[in-house]
C-alpha cells in the first residue's frame, strides 16, 4: 500500500480501459507495414552504405520496390528470392539494385517466398550482435555500484559529435549517469538516416550509426575510469523511428525516446504511420533490453500543468499497454512526466510532489523519467537554479528513476559545459541531503497532496473511459492531449504506410516475439 492511499479499483479500471484502447490500435498495426519498418529489416539483414548522392542504400532499395513493384509484400519477399537466385548476401543484392544492375520487380507476382530460410542467418547474425550488446551491458551494470537515488540524466547538444563527446565526459566527471545526445532540429522529419560522423547540426547532433558508435566508445572509456556504467540515450522517434531503434540496439544504446503520441502531437507525424513504426521499435527495444522513454512531459509545455495533469497519467496508462503489447517488461518502460507547474501558483511544490509520488505508486516497477521545469524558466538563471532545486527535491523524495536535470540557462541557449556542471552540483547536493527523506515522511490524510493525487487519478479514469469509447484516432483529432488536434490522414509520412499483402512476411519480428515470450515464461 502506498502513501497516497490511491484506490486500487480505479487504477485497475484505468489499466483495463487503456488495454482496450491499445488493442484497438493494435488491430490497425497488425494489418500494416511502413517504409521505415521495411528499411529496418534491410538494416537487420546487414544492408549498409550510401549511394553516390549519399542516399542510404536501404532507402534506395525500398523506394525501388515501392516504385517498381509491390512493397506490401515486404522486402523479405524480394530479398529472399534474389539472394537465393543469385547466391548473394542481402547487402550485395541491395548494392546491385542501387547500381541499377538488378530489378527486384521480377519477383513481384511470385507467390509467398519458399526461400525465407536463406535470410534467417543474416537476421540471426544481427540478433546475435544485439545479444552480445545485452550481455556487455549486463556485466557492466553488475559491476556498477547500486544506488537508491535517481539516475542523473543530462543532455549534450552541440551539433558536433566531437564536441558532444568532450561535454559528455565533463558531465560524467561531475556525476552524470546518463548522457542523451539531442538530435539536430528537424531530424524527426527526415525519412532517412544521415550517414557517418557529423559536425554540423542545429540545436543538436544528427543521429547516425557512426555518431552512436563514437559516443558509445567514449562513454565506455569514461565508464572504465569512473568504475560505473554510463548509459547512452538517443531518439527512436520521428519518421525513422524503427531504423534508429535498430541502430541503437546494434550500437548498444541503453535508452531510446520512443513515443508515437509525442510524434503525432508535436511533430505532426501521421498516426497510422507512427503507431506501426512504434510497435516494431518497441518489440526490438524489448528484445534488446533498451529502456524506452515516453514523452508525456511535453503535454504540459503547451497545456496547463494543473488543469491537464490527468492527460499525462491517462497517456502513461496507454503507453504502458502499447509497451505490453510489444512484450516489453515494466522494467523497460520509462514513462515520462514533468515538473511544469507555474511557480507563482500557491503550493505548487505540493502539487508537483503529489503528481510525482502518484506516478511512482501507480507504476512502481517502471523506471519513470522525470523532466525538469522548462515552460516557466525565464532566463533569470538565479531563480532558475532554485526552480531546479525544488524539482530535484521532488525527484529524490518520490524515488524517480531517470532524473533529467534542469539547466538554469533553459530558455536561453543549449547548455554550456558549465551550465551542466552547475546543474550536476545542485542535483548531487540534493541527492545527498534528501537521500532518505521520502522514506521518512507520510502524507496527511485528506490533505492537499493526497486529495490532489486522488483527483488526478479520478480524472484520468474518466478520460480513459472517454478515449475507450471514442478510440485513439478520434481522441487525437479532438485535441485531448496538449490541446493539439491531429487527423488520421493528416501529418507527415502517410504515404509510407502499406496494407500488408497476404504473402507479407516479417520473420524477424515473429522471431523476436517468440523469444520474448519464452523469456517471459522463464521468469
Amino acid at each position: 500500500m502506498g502513501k497516497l492511499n490511491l484506490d486500487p479499483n480505479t487504477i485497475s479500471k484505468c489499466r483495463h480501459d487503456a488495454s482496450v484502447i491499445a488493442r484497438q490500435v493494435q488491430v490497425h498495426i497488425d494489418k500494416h507495414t511502413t517504409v521505415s519498418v521495411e528499411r529496418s529489416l534491410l538494416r537487420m539483414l546487414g544492408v549498409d552504405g550510401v549511394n553516390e548522392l549519399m542516399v542510404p542504400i536501404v532507402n534506395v532499395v525500398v523506394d525501388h520496390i515501392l516504385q517498381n513493384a509491390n512493397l506490401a509484400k515486404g522486402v523479405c519477399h524480394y530479398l529472399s528470392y534474389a539472394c537465393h537466385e543469385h547466391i548473394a548476401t542481402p547487402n550485395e543484392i541491395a548494392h546491385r539494385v542501387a547500381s541499377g544492375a538488378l530489378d527486384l520487380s521480377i519477383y513481384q507476382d511470385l507467390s509467398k517466398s519458399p526461400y525465407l530460410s536463406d535470410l534467417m542467418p543474416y537476421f540471426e547474425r544481427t540478433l546475435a550482435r544485439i545479444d552480445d550488446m545485452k550481455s556487455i551491458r549486463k556485466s557492466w551494470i553488475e559491476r556498477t555500484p547500486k544506488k537508491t537515488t535517481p539516475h542523473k540524466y543530462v543532455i549534450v547538444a552541440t551539433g558536433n559529435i566531437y564536441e558532444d563527446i568532450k561535454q559528455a565526459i565533463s558531465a560524467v566527471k561531475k556525476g552524470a549517469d546518463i548522457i542523451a545526445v539531442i538530435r539536430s532540429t528537424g531530424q524527426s522529419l527526415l525519412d532517412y538516416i544521415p550517414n557517418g560522423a557529423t559536425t554540423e547540426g542545429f540545436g543538436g547532433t544528427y543521429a547516425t550509426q557512426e555518431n552512436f558508435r563514437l559516443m558509445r566508445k567514449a562513454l565506455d572509456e569514461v565508464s572504465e575510469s569512473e568504475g560505473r556504467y554510463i548509459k547512452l540515450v538517443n531518439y527512436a522517434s520521428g519518421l525513422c523511428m524503427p531504423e534508429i531503434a535498430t541502430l541503437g540496439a546494434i550500437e548498444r544504446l541503453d535508452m531510446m525516446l520512443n513515443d508515437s503520441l509525442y510524434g503525432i502531437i508535436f511533430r505532426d507525424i501521421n498516426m497510422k504511420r507512427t503507431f506501426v513504426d512504434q510497435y516494431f521499435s518497441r518489440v526490438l527495444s524489448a528484445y534488446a533490453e533498451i529502456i524506452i522513454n515516453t514523452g508525456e512531459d511535453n503535454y504540459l509545455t503547451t497545456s496547463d500543468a494543473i488543469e491537464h495533469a490527468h492527460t499525462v497519467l491517462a497517456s502513461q496508462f496507454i503507453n504502458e499497454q502499447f509497451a505490453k503489447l510489444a512484450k516489453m517488461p515494466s522494467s523497460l518502460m520509462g514513462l515520462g512526466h514533468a515538473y511544469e507547474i507555474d511557480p507563482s501558483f500557491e503550493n505548487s511544490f505540493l502539487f508537483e510532489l503529489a503528481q510525482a509520488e502518484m506516478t511512482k505508486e501507480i507504476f512502481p516497477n517502471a523506471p519513470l523519467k522525470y523532466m525538469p521545469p522548462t515552460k516557466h524558466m525565464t532566463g533569470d538563471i538565479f531563480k532558475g537554479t532554485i526552480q531546479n532545486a525544488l524539482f530535484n527535491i521532488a525527484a529524490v523524495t518520490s524515488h524517480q528513476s531517470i532524473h533529467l536535470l534542469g539547466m538554469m540557462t533553459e530558455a536561453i541557449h543549449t547548455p554550456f559545459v558549465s551550465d551542466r556542471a552547475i546543474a550536476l552540483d545542485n542535483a548531487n547536493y540534493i541527492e545527498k541531503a534528501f537521500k532518505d527523506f521520502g522514506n521518512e515522511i507520510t502524507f496527511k490524510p485528506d490533505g492537499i497532496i493526497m486529495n490532489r493525487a486522488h483527483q488526478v487519478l479520478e480524472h484520468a479514469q474518466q478520460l480513459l473511459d472517454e478515449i475507450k469509447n471514442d478510440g485513439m484516432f478520434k481522441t487525437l483529432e479532438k485535441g485531448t492531449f496538449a490541446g493539439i488536434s491531429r487527423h488520421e490522414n493528416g501529418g507527415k509520412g502517410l504515404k509510407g504506410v502499406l496494407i500488408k499483402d497476404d504473402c507479407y512476411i516479417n520473420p524477424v519480428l515473429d522471431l523476436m516475439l517468440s523469444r520474448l515470450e519464452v523469456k517471459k515464461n522463464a521468469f
Partner: protein
Amino acid sequence: MPFKSQWIRPYGDTMNDGKIQISFSLPMPHDALGEEAAKRFASLMGIHNPQIVHSTALSESFSFYIIYGTVEHQIDATTLTVTEQASVSLSKEEVEHFIEEHLVSPIVIVGASTGTDAHTVGIDAIMNMKGYNGHYGLERYQGIKAYNLGGQVENEVLLEKAIEYNADVILISQTVTQKDIHIQNLTAFVELLEAERMRDRFIVIIGGPRIHFGLAKELGYDAGFGPKKYANDVASFIVQTMYKKGRKLK
C-alpha cells in the same frame, strides 16, 4: 536637465563602485595556470582586481571560474538611444475596443514557428486561447481571427497560408538560435516576401527569446517581441500600426 551628462558604472553597494560578477569556463585544466588565464581574461575585459571567488574542474581539460571585480568602464547614460516601438501597450479589452472603434474586423493573423524550429511554446503563448501567464492569446480576442500553424512550418508554406487566409498580419516565432540559425531563417522570409512583391501587403512581426525590436527592424520586419511580452503587447502594436497605415479603417 536634458544636457547634463550622467556617467554611470555598475552598482554593488556604493554609487559607481563598478562591481560586477562574471562566470565562464576555459578549455584548460583547473590549476594555477588556469586561474591566471581566467584573471587575464577578466583584466582584458576591463575588470580591475579580479577576484576568483570560486573555481573548479569540469573535467581534466576544462575549468570553471566565478569572478568578482571592479569594471573600469563607465558610460554616459544621456548619450544612449534605443529603437523602441512607438505603440502604446493596451489591455485585451482596450485592443478589442480599438478594433470596434476604428477597424473593420476581423483582423486576420497567421502565425507559425518556422523552418526546422519545432518549438511552439512562443507562438502558442501569443496565439492560443489559453495564452500565457494570465494573458489570453489572440485566438480569444474579439475582432481578431488567429490561425496558429504550429511548428516546423516552411517559409513558403507560411506565405501560402497567409495569402489563402487573406491575412493582415504574419507572426513568426523563432526559439532555436544556435549558430544564429534564426537570423538566416528570418532573412530568408523577408527575401521571399520581397521576391514575391508582397512585403507591403502584410504587417510582419517576429518573436522569440532572442528577438528584440531593434533586431526586427534591422532584418526588415515591422516589429519584434522578446521575453516578457504577451498577446496584448503584440495586438496593441498590430491595431495601432494598422490604424497608422490606414489598413482596414472603418
